[in-house]
Structure formats: structure tokens, C-alpha cells
């Protein structure tokens, strides 16, 4: 086993080790602590015979498990940087390690394998880096909660599954990671399972993701049907050959590859919360803040974007599917941003911002700018994690209050958090000066918008237009958040006021690397990510059939996003700081439109009417009329009565007398000899 294999495997499996160790600690039952049932584990498992665990208090155990998982994650993150440098710039280049055969059944073969190319290396670096910071943050943030160890174990497991997903070299292993991420999101969103809202949000996330997963699964079946293999290498190599194939249904036919790509995209829509399957994302705020940061920045929602980029050699041959992706992404970007304008829950604003930014990444992929899409994914990971964790710091200081109407004037009391929030918002809004310096989002968002403009297709232009609107709204709601939270008069009660304080450096410390990333990631990376897919950086990890190099983007189109962002920032600052009466008046004047947006376009209500309520009725019909009245009556109930009768008959023979048994044996022997003779002659 070579050194690279060991290092590459270590990055993926260290988080799993962390999860297992923390899980082991969670199962052990230290002294003077809650009972296993209260701790959320179904059984206790005494590890007190290990000297280190004997007599350990709950607090010590929590910190121990937290620091252990954080340490493993930090090691993984450090190794990930090393791998990234090696894969993207070094001699190493892309490589695949086959760890073990998984199974071979019929024609389906699958290996456990790790595929490290530039795309994977970037994802691994982002995922482990963000996750390490979130782990460190969570050690302090979750202090005193009764299931901290379980929480840390879930966080590590979440990261492991995401790493499995991004390092897969076949669709099946990717699906393994995909489902694992879904499972962990369910566990973490519903972490406070005694709270009905959290429990419901967990289930909602799981169900909505099941719908997407179903599409993904059908897409995988389609790939197998088209290519006869699930390995990426085979699929990518043969993608050009299947272009002409069609699926025929009755007298209609459709392009097979487009259909498969659209099905795969349905999976991506579920995980990445695109319009239609996005309803779980805002509710996922019910989980603890570190979970929100992890879901929104590193794991889970980026999986869909990654999948489209990973399968770019496939999607490139299905232009119709790409058009759909671009339009869905662009519409999501605008719709989500508009909802963000009206929300008052600090975490929800950021959640809708994530959804909007994911839409941006998707339309970048739709116009074949996969590099820009991944670039935005990476920069977004930094500033979104920063924004969430800073919001967590605010919530922590406000004793759990999340409504911005009950905040205000906090900047004097928590200057560091305030500064960090500014940095995050500047990066999110994409502020910068062309050719000099810009915050992370400036480079990635501009790259996407320019690519959309330069693509030349109608949907490229539509996406560009919608993207500009989204950019304006993004800046607007970001400063609305800052002003409402940190400026103006304090609107919280005296009881809360007594506790408002700047968070400790244990909490703020992990934000510093994230802030550095939010400031510098774009400046450092934009040349790499903008390079050609088959060039020196990407080394063929992405495929784009039509380059944009030749297209000329007018200066106006380049400057428009920045101008709109500055406009949104200024307008929002003026409105909420100087004239807070105007937004209230506008909300009343716009009436129906405002209510539509404020109620998130009534997606939840419509789904409730269309699916959530009718389905149980349909189920009840099949249950009572179909299952009980027909199938059970003639099937299981009837058959089992017969089976039990036969059983009783067989039992009569079992007399307990040895000579009866011997007699049966002798008879059987005679019968067997006779039977053999009949068959032979």
C-alpha cells in the first residue's frame, strides 16, 4: 500500500474513526450523569473498566469526545490541503485507489474505491476544513446539552458520508454516501427530538430528500441500462456514443441521455434544495446552529452541485437537461432571495440566502461553467459557515432568541461578532474592486454571471438577468440583517439584556479561519478555477464542450452585479437605519404580494393540500378496503390457519418414543431405496 493510498484513505476514514470513538464514548455510562434513556441511547454499556473512563464526569466526557473528534477532523483537514496541492499542482495528479471489492452480482460490480482528482480534492478540502471549524465551535456551543457526545459522533459521521460521496468512483458508492448524508441530516436536524418542531423538521428533510433520491436512483438505473456499468470511467468514456439513443413510450420517444440526466438532476434538486424540493431547508433550522452551518456550507446541500459537476462529462451531452438546470437554478436564486427579504428569523434569512446561492451555482453548471460553479461552492462554504456561526454567536448571546425584531443595537456589545458578520456579508454580496481586490464572493459570483452572459444561449441571458436581480436582493437582505440585528435601538427585554455579552474566544476562534477564507479565498483562487477544464489545474476532472473564451462580455455587463450589490446595500442600510417606517408602509401597501412572499409563496400550504392530507386518506382506503378486506382475509389469515393446521399434524408424529423414530427411519430408508431404483431404471 503506497503512501498516497494511506493518506487519501486517512482523510476519508479519520472522520469515521472519530464518529466510532465518540459513539463508543456515548454508549458508555459515566458516573453522576443522566440515565441512558435520557441521554438518547437505548442501552448502556459500561466502559468503566477502562481506567481513563472510570469516574469521569459528564462535562469531562463531553469535552473529551468533542476535542477528540475535532482533532481527528483537523488532521483530516491538514491532510486534505496536502492532497489538494499534490493533485492539482504536484506530480501526483488524479488517482483512484481500489480499497476492496464490494460485490459482484449479476452484471453489477462495485468496488469500494477512492477517486481523487482536482474536483474531489477541492471538495474534500472544503468539507474537512469547514467541518473541523464547526466541530471546534460545537464543543463550546453545545456545552451543557445532555447529548453532546452523540452530537459530535453524528457530526463526524455526517462528514464521513459526505467524503464518501465526493470520493466515490462509481454511482453506487456515491449513492451510499448520498443516503448516508440524508440519514445524518435527519438525525441532526431532529437532534432535539423532544421538541416536536425539530422532530417534524427532521422527518420533513428526510421525506423531501426521499423524493429526490428516488429520481437519483432512477437515474442510476438509467445509467446502468445505457452504459452497462456504474463506474465513472466507463460512463464518461461512452457518453458520446449514447447520444442518439431514445426511450420509446407508446408513440412518443425522448432522448435517453436527457431523460437520465434530468432524473439525476431531480436527485440534486432534493439534496441541494432547488425550487420545488426546497421546503425542507428552512425548517432544517430547527437543528442546532453548528448543524445548520455544516449542512449549508460543507455537507448535504453542496452534494447536488458536486454531483452535476462530477457528472459533467455526461451532462455536457444532454444540452436540453443543461437548459433545465440553468432555468431551475436561476428561478430558485430569485425566488429564494425574495423570500429572504421578508423573513425575521435571523437563521431563516441566511437559510434562504443559501438556497439562492445554490441556485446560482446550478445555473453556472447549466451554462457549462462547472469551474465557476465549484468556485462559488468553495467560497460560499467559507462565508456561509461564517455567517451561520456568527448568527449562532448572536443567538447564544441573546439566550436563544432568533427573531431579529427583538434584537437591535448589539454592535457595541459584541464588536467581534459584528465585524465577522460584516465580513461574511461583504463576501456574500460580492463586494470588490475589479483588478485590485475583492471579497470571496466577488470573484466567484462575477465569474458565474459573466459565464452566463457569455454563453450566448437564450437561457444563459435569462439566467444572467435573474442572477442580477438575485445579486441586488442578496445585498439588500444582508444589510437588512445587519442593521436590524446590530443597529438601532435595543428591542430586547431587560431579562435578556442582563445576559447579552460577546462570546468567548472558544466560540469566536474557529470563525477566524473562516473569516480569512471569506476575505481571501476568491482573490487566491480565481485564476485556478477560471482555467480550462482540461488545463493545468482541473486536469480533466471537468468537461465542458464549449469554451467561453472567445465571447466578449461588455464592461456594462461585468460591472452591473457590483453596482446592483452596492445599490442594494446602500438602499437597505438607508431604509432600515434612517427610515424604518418605509418598509412597514411598503409591506402594507404591497399587501397581497408581500403576503405571498412573506409566506414563502405558500409552497408548504400547497403541498399540504396536494400531498400531505390526501395521501393518508388514500392509504387508509387501501388499508381497510384493499388489505384487510381482500388480501388479509383470503391471504395471510387463511393461509396461516392452514399452515398452523399442518404444523399441528406434523407435531402428532413427534411422539417422543425412540422406537417410533427408528421405525420412521426404517420406512424412510425403504422408500428412498425404492425411489432411487424407480429413478435409475
Amino acid at each position, binding site marked *: 500500500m503506497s503512501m498516497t493510498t494511506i493518506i487519501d484513505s486517512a482523510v476519508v476514514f479519520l472522520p469515521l474513526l472519530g464518529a466510532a470513538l465518540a459513539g463508543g464514548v456515548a454508549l458508555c455510562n459515566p458516573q453522576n450523569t443522566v440515565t441512558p434513556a435520557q441521554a438518547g441511547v437505548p*442501552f448502556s*454499556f459500561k466502559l468503566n473498566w477502562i481506567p481513563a473512563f472510570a469516574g469521569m464526569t459528564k462535562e469531562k466526557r463531553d469535552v473529551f469526545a468533542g476535542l477528540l473528534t475535532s482533532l481527528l477532523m483537523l488532521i483530516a483537514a491538514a491532510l486534505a490541503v496536502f492532497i489538494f496541492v499534490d493533485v492539482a499542482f504536484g506530480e501526483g495528479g488524479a488517482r483512484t485507489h481500489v480499497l476492496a471489492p464490494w460485490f459482484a452480482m449479476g452484471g453489477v460490480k462495485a468496488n469500494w474505491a477512492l477517486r481523487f482528482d482536482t474536483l474531489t480534492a477541492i471538495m474534500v478540502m472544503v468539507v474537512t476544513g469547514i467541518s473541523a471549524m464547526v466541530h471546534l465551535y460545537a464543543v463550546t456551543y453545545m456545552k451543557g446539552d445532555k447529548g453532546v457526545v452523540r452530537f459530535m459522533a453524528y457530526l463526524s459521521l455526517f462528514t464521513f458520508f459526505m467524503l464518501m460521496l465526493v470520493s466515490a468512483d462509481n454511482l453506487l458508492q456515491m449513492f451510499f454516501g448520498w443516503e448516508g448524508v440524508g440519514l445524518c441530516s435527519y438525525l441532526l436536524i431532529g437532534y432535539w427530538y423532544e421538541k416536536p418542531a425539530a422532530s417534524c423538521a427532521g422527518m420533513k428533510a428526510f421525506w423531501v430528500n426521499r423524493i429526490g433520491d428516488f429520481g437519483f436512483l432512477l437515474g442510476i438505473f438509467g445509467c446502468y441500462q445505457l452504459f452497462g456499468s456504474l463506474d465513472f470511467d466507463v460512463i464518461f468514456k461512452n457518453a458520446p456514443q449514447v447520444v442518439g439513443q431514445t426511450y420509446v413510450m407508446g408513440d412518443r420517444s425522448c432522448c435517453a441521455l436527457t431523460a437520465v440526466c434530468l432524473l439525476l438532476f431531480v436527485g440534486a434538486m432534493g439534496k441541494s434544495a432547488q425550487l420545488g424540493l426546497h421546503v425542507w431547508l428552512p425548517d432544517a433550522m430547527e437543528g442546532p446552529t453548528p448543524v445548520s452551518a455544516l449542512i449549508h456550507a460543507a455537507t448535504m446541500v453542496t452534494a447536488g452541485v458536486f454531483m452535476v459537476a462530477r457528472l459533467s462529462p455526461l451532462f455536457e451531452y444532454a444540452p436540453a437537461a443543461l437548459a433545465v438546470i440553468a432555468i431551475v437554478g436561476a428561478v430558485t436564486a430569485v425566488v429564494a432571495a425574495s423570500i429572504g427579504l421578508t423573513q425575521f428569523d435571523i437563521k431563516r434569512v441566511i437559510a434562504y440566502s443559501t438556497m439562492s446561492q445554490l441556485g446560482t451555482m446550478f445555473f453556472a453548471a447549466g451554462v457549462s461553467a462547472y469551474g465557476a460553479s465549484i468556485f462559488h461552492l468553495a467560497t460560499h462554504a467559507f462565508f456561509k459557515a461564517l455567517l451561520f456561526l456568527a448568527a449562532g454567536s448572536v443567538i447564544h448571546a441573546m439566550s436563544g432568541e432568533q427573531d431579529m425584531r427583538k434584537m437591535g443595537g448589539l454592535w457595541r456589545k459584541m464588536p467581534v461578532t459584528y465585524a465577522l458578520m460584516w465580513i461574511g456579508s461583504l463576501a456574500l454580496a460580492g463586494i470588490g474592486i475589479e483588478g485590485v481586490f475583492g471579497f470571496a464572493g466577488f470573484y466567484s459570483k462575477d465569474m458565474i454571471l459573466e459565464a452566463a452572459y457569455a454563453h450566448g444561449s437564450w437561457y444563459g441571458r435569462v439566467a444572467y438577468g435573474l442572477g442580477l436581480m438575485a445579486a441586488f436582493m442578496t445585498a439588500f437582505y444582508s444589510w437588512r440583517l445587519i442593521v436590524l440585528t446590530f443597529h438601532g435601538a435595543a428591542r430586547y427585554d431587560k431579562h435578556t439584556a442582563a445576559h447579552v455579552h460577546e462570546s468567548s474566544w472558544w466560540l469566536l476562534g474557529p470563525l477566524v479561519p473562516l473569516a480569512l477564507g471569506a476575505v481571501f479565498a476568491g482573490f487566491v483562487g480565481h485564476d485556478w478555477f477560471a482555467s480550462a477544464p482540461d488545463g493545468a489545474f482541473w486536469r480533466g476532472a471537468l468537461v465542458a464542450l464549449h469554451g467561453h473564451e472567445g465571447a466578449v462580455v461588455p464592461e456594462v455587463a461585468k460591472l452591473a452585479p457590483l453596482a446592483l450589490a452596492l445599490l442594494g446595500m446602500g438602499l437597505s442600510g438607508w431604509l432600515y437605519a434612517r427610515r424604518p417606517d418605509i418598509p412597514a408602509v411598503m409591506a402594507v401597501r404591497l399587501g397581497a404580494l408581500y403576503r405571498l412572499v412573506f409566506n414563502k409563496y405558500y409552497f408548504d400550504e400547497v403541498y399540504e393540500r396536494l400531498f400531505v392530507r390526501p395521501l393518508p386518506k388514500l392509504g387508509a382506503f387501501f388499508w381497510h378496503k384493499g388489505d384487510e378486506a381482500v388480501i388479509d382475509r383470503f391471504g395471510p389469515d387463511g393461509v396461516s390457519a392452514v399452515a*398452523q393446521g399442518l*404444523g399441528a399434524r406434523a407435531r402428532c408424529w413427534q411422539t417422543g418414543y425412540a422406537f417410533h423414530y427408528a421405525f420412521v427411519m426404517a420406512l*424412510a430408508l425403504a422408500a*428412498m*431405496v425404492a*425411489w*432411487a431404483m424407480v429413478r*435409475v431404471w
Partner: protein
Amino acid sequence: MTSILFALPEITVALAAMALLLIGAFRGDKAGGLVTSAAVVSLLAAAALVALGRESGVALYGMFAVDDYRRFVKVMLLIAAAGSLVLAPVFFGGQKSGLKPEYPVLVMLATLGMMLMISAHDWIALYVALELQNLGLYVLTAFQREEKRSSEAGLKYFMLSAFSSAIMLFGLSLLYGFAGGTGFDVMAHTLAQGQAMPIGLVVGLVFVMAGFALKVSAAPFHMWTPDVYEGAPLPVTAFLAAAPKIAALALLAVVLGVPLIAAASVWQPVLMALAVASMALGSFAGLLQKNIKRLMAYSAIANVGTMLVGLAALDPVAGGMSVEGLQGVLIYLAVYFVATLGVFGVVAGLRQGEALVESVDDLAGLSQAHPWLSLVLAAMLFSLAGVPPLAGFFGKYFVLLAAVKAGLWPLALIGVLASVVAAGYYLRIVKIMYFDKGSGSVLTSPRSYAHNCGLALATLFVVLFVLWPSPVIEGAHQAVERLLVP
């Protein structure tokens, strides 16, 4: 390699058994725990020795064969024997008699007999090895001799087994008369001449199969099984359910697949009849059982029936025994013995007050008293019922798939139906322990660390098999290919 070294694992087990017997003799009954631990270690060491072997060949004057197939089966056997020994201290510790040092020694000697059976390459070797394991098993069954049920079971087992041994020996003498020699090679060679099959050969072959049928408890030679399983002390039942099944089925496969392959037209219909009878009887008769050990006896009968389907599958092209069928049987054996030991492992530790838990209904409320244990038991039962993605599913899948490929789809169909019926009694236990209210008396579960580790390993195997099945699946494939494809 000199020929005696082929038998190094067997020699190790034999010497260890002698040494432990001496320790037991000198230190008396209080050495029971020590001797048991030492026996587990030496069995596992022998398993390691087997696994490390690479060379194949025939040794000891043509009596003793070693190859990949034998190694694979022996490793399973030794793990099963060690696993059943792990249950012993907890069980006997709660009994008046305590854990006597003879117990592990007898288990080792019976295991030695089984190892020799697996390696048999000659009818005489086969018979002697069979009797060695039988002797051990008789004594083990009657081990709690002051208990009426245990001694009755021992006597019953002895009588019926002796009866079948006589039948088998008679069959073997007929085979010898036909071939003119006792070696497997002679048999294969003579049969391959291609002459018409004399009636003596047919009768002899069927007699030998009848002997095997009793060993693997295939219906209608199964009748001793429920009584003996119920009467024997629980660790002995666990041992009986795992180890002899592995040895006898593996040996039956060798006998039918190698020296007697040319007589497939005789043994295939007989085997199919045994398989159908076992599957049908095992699954239906188990439905009404109240005693867990009796229930596991019927489970054994049904599972053996399914495995016989795999042995009955012939390669449609080459005409020999189907590689996939026998591979399926080995996989089936591996997942079956682990799940069976797991079930007994959970039950072995349970007490209701002072009394042993033997009735299915006693498990009511187990999930509240011991959630961790019930989880293990549920995993084992779901695996036995063949619910994917647990290990048990793959055993059934490979065996029945091979049967379909060999054209035996009616048998495969019966196999599927039988496992549906049998699922009824496995899942009934799960229902009782999770949904029925306990009687109020407290279920206690004293267990040793080794016991816990064994249960944990078995559970991990059953649950995680799907993630990394290739060692078993590929290992079985290679083993079988070496045996069947010359």
C-alpha cells in the same frame, strides 16, 4: 511439506485436548473456567493454523486430504466450536453442577472428529472420524446426567445414531464391494468406467445417504432433533446446531461431488426428496413450537433442507456438481451458524429468577429489560428469516439462484415458500419480545466479557456482511472451484 504436517491443526487440537484433560484431572472441578478459556484459545489457534496453510494434497496413506475447500470448512467449524464454548461458562455457572473441565475437552474431541471427517479421503477414515465425533456428542448431550431430560436425550441420540451408523456402515461395505477399494479415488475411478450401475451400488449409496441424513437432521431422519435439542444443555444444543451440521454437510458435498459424481443420477433424486421433505416439515412444524430449543431444531431442519437444494444442483453443461450451488451452501453455512450461535448466545445468558429461560413466551418484555440483547436477537432472527440486507439473505440468494440456474426451479420455489412460512416463527419471537408485555418477573442476564464480545462480533457479521461480503463469497468460490474443477 512432509505428510504428517498436513494434519498439524488436528494434531494441535488433539494434543491440546490431552493437556487440558490432565489439567482438569489434577486441579479438579474448579479448573473448569481455565480449561474452557484455554480450549477456546486452542481452537482459535488451530483455526489460524488452518487458515495459514497454503499447500494442498493427500497425506497419511491416502486417508487424509487437505485443500482450499477443506481449509475453508475447517475454519468455519473451529470458529463455530469456539463460539459455542464461549456460551458454556455463563450457562453452567448458573447450574448446580457448575462448569466441569471435561466439558471443553469433550467439545474439543468431538471437534477433532469433525475435522477428520472434513478431511476424509477414504471410507474407513470417514467412518472412524464420524464415530469419534459421535462419541463426543453422545456424552455431551447427556452431560447433565443427574437431569432426566438430559440423560434421556443422550440415550435417544445414542440409539438412533447407532442405528444410522449401522445402516451407513452397511452401505459403505456395499460401496467397497463395488469398487474393490476403500479410497475415494478408487471409487471415482471405478465409477468412471461407465458400466451399468449394479443394484448393490444403488442400495449402498442410498444407505450411506441415509446415514448422512440423520447427521444433518434432514427429514424424515430428523425425528431425534427436536427431542435432543430440547433435552441437551443449552451450550451443547448450540454446539450441535452449528458444528456437526457444518462438518456433515461439507463431507456429504465432498462424497457426492467427488467420488460419487458419476452416480449423480442415483443420488440427485434422493437428495431432492430429502430437501423437499425437510423444507416443508421444518417450516410448518416450527410454527407451533413453544420451546426455543425445539423451535431452533425445526429451524435447523428447514435450513438444512434449503442447503440440500444447493447440493442437488448439477452443472447443466459439465454435468458435475454445480460450483455455484456448493458455493451457495458454504455461504449459507457461514451465515447460518453465526446466526444460530447468536440466538443461543442471547438465550444462554437469560434467567427468570433462578430458572432458565426456555419458552418463547418468557421473552416477552425483553426489549424493555435488555434493549441491547433484544437488538442482537432481532438481528439474528431477521437474518435467519432471510431478510435483506442481513447476511442470511445472501445464503438463501446464492443457493436458490444456483438451483434456478441448474433447472431446479420447482425446488427453488419450494425453498422460497418454505422460508416465507419459517419467517412466521422467527418473527413471532421478535413480536413477542418487542410488543408483548412481560409477566413482571425480572429477566436477568449475567454475561462474561467474552460472551459479550462473541455476541457483538456475530451481530457485526450479520449486519455488516452486505458492506464487505467478498471474503466469504470469494473465499467460498475459490474453495469450491479447487474441489470440483480438476
